């Protein structure tokens, strides 16, 4: 398990959060209980299994929804 912190472009609507949350939780390998999106700091935090899903795949699933990823950090 690795944990990632992803900085997004500024989120403007609370429903954006729900969309991103839904998309991330549907990815195989992402630990659903750890997905946390903060609206005001526009950050996503989650734990994921690097054998099942890569950080690139996670980022691209956010990109597909139309939100830019500015920076991501994996530990």
């Amino acid at each position, binding site marked *: 398990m690795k944990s990632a912190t992803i900085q997004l472009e*500024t989120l*403007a*609507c*609370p*429903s954006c959060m*729900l*969309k991103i*949350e*839904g*998309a991330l939780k*549907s990815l195989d390998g992402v630990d659903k209980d750890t997905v946390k999106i*903060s*609206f*005001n*700091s526009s*950050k996503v935090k989650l734990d994921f299994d690097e054998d099942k899903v890569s950080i690139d795949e996670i980022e691209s699933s956010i*990109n*597909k*929804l*139309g939100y*830019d990823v500015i920076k991501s*950090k994996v530990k």
Partner: protein
Amino acid sequence: MQRYILSSKNKITSISGVLIAVGFISKWTMGSMDVFVWSLIIASILGAAPIAIQAYQALKVKVVSIDVLVTIAVGGAFLIQNYEEAAIVTFLFLFGAFLEQRTLNKTRSAIKELTEMAPESALKLMDDGEFVEVEVDEVDVGDVLLVKTGAKVPVDGTVLTGEGSVNEASITGESIPVKKEKGSNVFAGTILDNGTIQIIADRVGEDTTFGKIIELVEEAQDSKSEAERFIDRFAKYYTPAVLVIAFIVWILSRDIELAITILVLGCPGALVIGVPVSNVAGIGNGARNGILLKGSEVISDFSRLDTIVFDKTGTLTVGKPSVAEKEYYGDNIDEALGYLASVERESDHPLAKAVLEEIGETTFSTVENTEVVKGGGIVASVNGHKIAVGNAALMERENVKLDEKARADIARFEKAGNSLVLAAVDGELKVLMGVRDRIRPGVKEDLLRLKKLGVKNLIMLSGDNQGTVDVVSRELGLTEAHGNMLPEDKSAYIKKLIEEKGQIVAFVGDGVNDSPSIALANIGIAMGGGTDVAIETSDVVLMNSDFSRLPHALGLTKATARNMKQNIFIALGVVLVLLAGLLFSEWVNMSIGMLVHEASILVVILNGMRLLRYKLR
């Protein structure tokens, strides 16, 4: 394709705005209905595209978002060939979203300033003995780093070599240079004003004090109060409900126009955004002023405060005994002070330290034949003079004559809560000093401000004896003051206030030995210079132990709570007025509904932004 459309939303908005303008101008000037209709059709299709994509994405994750309502409404308008409404509604919706994003960024600016103070790079010592610039994420605990003049300290660490002065404003809120030398602790995010130091990394990234402060503020902004969670739940069912109502209206009345107008009017915009906006702006204002507020629940409790309970030592008082008053008798005082300092220098009594600090630079002489008198003081000989330093009882024992003035001074000093230090040279009283833990400067005025803001009870609890406590209490005008209290007595007292008297209680302490009380009170306030314990256990942290921030904090939370209520009122009021307008008059249509909605969203955001400029009057 989806991505392209979404990322050029701003371009689409301006194009559709231009198209609408072209359409109307050609209709009014040339009476050309063809240009009018076609430009509006293109404008609505263009404008509807990004909204429809967002709606589709939302539905995919089972969320009925505002986008869904608007997309259906625009679709409906298209069906009844009302292109004018379709174009204007999509344009207003997009343009409104653009303005919201811009203004929302403003409300978040205070926090942004804070995070931008985070260090980004570090000079790390590599295996070959060279310092190389690396990203701060690449620094691990135990690495040796070089910090040059003007640079940010990248991590929390200990100075290995070199010295310099550091501006710790980012941690303490106070921009006074602090001297650092070998063995000193330095903190991430502070700036080395001059000098060059090498440090070893003790804590990195989010574990540093600065990292914790940022995380705390970010989490606080997103934490939700009971009221907000209610609104969220409400909004979750509200939008689908609007959809159902519009559908029923359509079935019953067969009037598409009416049904889609209801869809637009039902958008919950201002309601969802209003409360978080106040919250963010309020917490941002606090962070800028050295007050960390942990979330909106804290704001709501803090604003309804009845009672503040203070710890005495270190909170209302400075926390270190010092000479508060002094009197000199007779001649050769400088000489006498020198003797006094020489004797006190050999003692580690707290009073002796205070006396030495007061005297400062002086000529020290050799002290001989020192005799410690238990419960009295010290008798010794210095330069052939017999020196007695101690309390009044010692003076009596040494047959030092106290004249009337001296007796009056002693009585006065004692009444003010001082411990006394008397010094006699060859049986003659020279110096009288009153030592006490002094009240912090400005505390009295701050307490008065708190009372004016509506705090009913100001209570002091202290481990000190009741006499000292009473003196401080009288001087500060407190409601109640209790002495001889152990930490567990304090927390029991707070529990009693909360459970038996039903008060909302804040406890203000230094965050170290008061943690039970801080945890138990409705609002735990730590006067912490950025220490970990203080940051973690409390609800509110006053940075740099600055008591004067407390009235600002209370005023700010009250203003923020008020601001939230105003925003809820505005949001609900707008929906009610629009619905009433729809039912009882003719002036409400889809475009006006959208215009009013977007305007109300901007109004609540602007209202929230006022908090960024809040100052206690």
